[in-house]
């Protein structure tokens, strides 16, 4: 037996090329993001014809239509549901677990709801700029982790009073409305709390948001995750999502700030363990594809709750995913190109002389630092060892402090010199 514990897609491709496969060999199930690479091994093979089998390397288009036919052949009653509860409270581990399930699990007959809660952190969307969403340096000082998730959308603050729900299905059965209704029904059934789903797919109670949504659709799997604010620390939340005062010019996705409320403000009895139970049971007792409650008979047929321990021993390959999620290259480095501008007043006799500092940041590194002299349109590059270093608010303030030392007479000289 090979020493490889897990065969990821690239290893499988390698094995294929080496001709290691015999006709009877069974392949590992592999999930891919929405790209139609014809070399992919995208389906599992087995001798019995179960509803979610498809041909192997017979061409992707044929595969996807075959899969669709096979998937639609699966009756609602064939689909069994599980609720996985993560044992970890580390944002990077949980993001890695979500990613692992998305990439490796077979959801054909088995829908999964993953419930997780994290220690205090700020999570930004895939295409967001962390510096426009929060003060990154201050987060680091206060021990609040910054993470970037793989799905789009805006920035959120997580702590143990916030429950995250990820609904996993095959791509064809992705249904956001269904998932959000599970949550609203659970809230009503458990505490008689009435809530609505607005047009942005937020769950609101009397116009204040208690849940935000984001999703990732790939092939063959998809997930939709949302938060539920049960008893989050609103003070810390407010303080964490404040950016450094400067003019950020960025094309990244901006968050849409909304007033939020905790469920505990609406009903004092709400707590996270009970919420976890309520949402889980509602998920299990509802039919898989239709929003119909099946009660205890439906519940009995499901696979129930399971604790999952997201370590390498149980999910081989997860350490690698975690390392990638916690790496600087992902969290900061994936920031789309942007520039920061700040106007500085100089010390000196002539008050009113303003210098405009402009920093261009690419992939998280300061690529260009320049100042615009007063009464001039020219941008003068600043020579500093900070060039090419990582951008953060501390470095920005460092440059500003250094520039503030410059007196107006120096500036006059420079201006006259340049003319």
């Amino acid at each position, binding site marked *: *037996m090979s020493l*490889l*514990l*897990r*065969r990821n897609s690239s290893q499988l491709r390698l094995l294929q090329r080496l001709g290691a496969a*015999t006709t*009877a*060999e*069974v*392949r*590992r*199930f592999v999930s891919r993001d929405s790209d139609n690479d014809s070399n992919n091994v995208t389906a*599992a*093979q*087995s*001798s*019995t014809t179960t509803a979610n089998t498809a041909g192997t390397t017979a061409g992707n288009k044929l595969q996807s239509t075959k899969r669709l036919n096979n998937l639609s052949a699966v009756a609602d009653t064939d689909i*069994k549901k*599980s*609720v*996985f*509860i993560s*044992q970890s409270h580390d944002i990077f581990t949980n993001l890695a677990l979500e990613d692992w399930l998305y990439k*490796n*699990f*077979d959801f054909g007959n088995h829908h999964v709801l993953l419930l997780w809660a994290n220690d205090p952190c700020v999570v930004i969307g895939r295409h967001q700029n962390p510096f426009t969403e929060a003060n990154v340096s201050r987060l680091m000082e206060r021990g609040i982790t910054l993470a970037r998730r793989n799905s789009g959308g805006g920035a959120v603050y997580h702590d143990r009073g916030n429950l995250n729900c990820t609904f996993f299905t095959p791509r064809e059965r992705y249904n956001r409305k269904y998932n959000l209704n599970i949550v609203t029904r659970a809230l009503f059934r458990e505490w008689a709390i009435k809530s609505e789903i607005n047009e942005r797919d937020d769950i609101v109670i009397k116009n204040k948001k208690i849940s935000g949504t984001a999703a990732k659709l790939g092939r063959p799997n998809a997930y939709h995750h949302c938060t539920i604010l049960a008893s989050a620390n609103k003070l810390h939340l407010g303080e964490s999502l404040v950016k450094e005062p400067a003019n950020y010019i960025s094309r990244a996705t901006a968050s849409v700030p909304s007033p939020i409320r905790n469920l505990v403000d609406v009903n004092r009895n709400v707590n996270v*363990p009970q919420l*976890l*139970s309520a949402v*889980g049971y509602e998920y*299990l007792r509802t039919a898989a594809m239709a929003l119909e409650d099946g009660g205890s008979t439906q*519940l*009995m*047929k*499901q*696979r*129930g*709750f*399971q*604790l*999952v*321990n997201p*370590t390498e*021993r*149980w*999910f*081989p390959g997860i350490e690698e995913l975690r390392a990638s999620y916690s790496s600087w290259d992902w969290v900061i480095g994936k920031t789309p190109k942007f520039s920061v501008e700040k106007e500085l007043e100089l010390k000196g006799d002539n008050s009113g002389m303003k210098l405009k500092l402009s920093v261009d940041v690419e992939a998280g590194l300061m690529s260009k630092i320049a100042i615009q002299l007063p009464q001039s349109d020219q941008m003068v590059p600043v020579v500093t060892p900070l060039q090419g270093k990582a951008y953060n608010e501390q470095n920005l303030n460092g440059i500003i402090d250094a520039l503030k030392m410059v007196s107006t007479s120096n500036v006059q000289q420079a201006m006259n010199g340049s003319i």
Partner: protein
Amino acid sequence: MTTKMAINAKDIFRNQHRLIRFIEQSIRLCSNQSLKTAQQQQQKASTPDFEITASVNTQYTHAPEPIKHDKDLGHMFKASQMAVRLATPQQLQPKPDNDEELGFGKLFTDHMLKIYYHKSLGGWQKPEITPLENLVMHPAAKVLHYAVELFEGMKAYRGVDGKIRIFRPDMNMNRMNLAAQRSGLPTFEGKEFVQCLSRLLSIDSEWVPHTEAASLYIRPTLIGIDPTLGVASSDSALLYSILSPVGSYFKTGSNGAVSLLADPSYTRAWPGGVGNRKMGSNYAPTINVQKEAAARGLQQVLWLYGEDHQLTEVGTMNIFMFYVNDQGEQELITPPLNGLILPGITRDSILAMTRQWGKFKVREATFTMPMVSELLNQGRLLELFGTGTACVVSPINRINYLGQDLYIPTMEQEKPVHELIRETLTDIQYGKVDHPWSVVID
């Protein structure tokens, strides 16, 4: 010549064959160092000299005989009538971080399967799956007094495609029913029980890690719970099953060979007894003997029987010997099912497989310690190993017999048969090859 010198000479004389072999090997190693590595590489590159066939020739295996149920047994249970009570999130047990905390049978999953039998209520009751909980019984329950108990050992494997498989469950069911008949316990439909087990496995499937070589140990048990002291058949019984996660794959330590204590003063089984049934009462008396072996620095007990010291079993495993017979051909031999031997499923699978290979002679016959010593002296003993569900094959390298140490060259063979057997069986069990013996549940 002093006594000391005499003793040393005696030792050398006694172990001369081992010494000769050792010297020969060292010479081989020294001179053919490069040659050996080249040979090894060649071995790996060449195609295996046997085929894992996707079918089993029925002439080499016997389908288990159907069980004859008692006329007044009553109602049979059906998997379709099963009731399920799922564990709440608060009742779930956290999964350990790594293998060191696992051991064997120390940790159990979240759910269990329970099926009651009450003759006064018509027979077998509805199966239920419940969270793992303690059993409550009357202090006069027969199992507590007369060991009216039998159990099974099976494994569920997560295959390379992520699906969960069990290996030849029909054999375990048959074995269980035979033992039930002997203990005055009610028999049952094996197929229905396997279906109930499949449901239990699907509920607790996350207890099997997603690595390629992970398994879950299944322990079905049948106990007599009749609350009366008479030594008679049980009118009430409980058939239940619990699951235990086992270490994911072999670490270098446990793959090593074991050393045995062969003491003819202890007997595990006798003709007319129940050595051939997997009943708890067979195991309690062995615990102290195992303790004695451990005290002498030996790992397992080799069970001997009779005046001629027949080898019967190793610890809780069956035993196989691979040697060169009187006709000069290689032969694999194991004791026959004469009533002293537990009919192991791994044992049966190995016999069927090796007979189908046809590469060497395969025989079921008794063999004795004097035979083993003689073969060892003539250098005709090649391998000695135990077989069982827990570790598939367990090579033996030393036997302490009547105060003497016999060194078995099991690990010194170039292409050991036991390794070949282990690889083939695990390939089937983990679904690397499609095989009717490995049943997919999920």
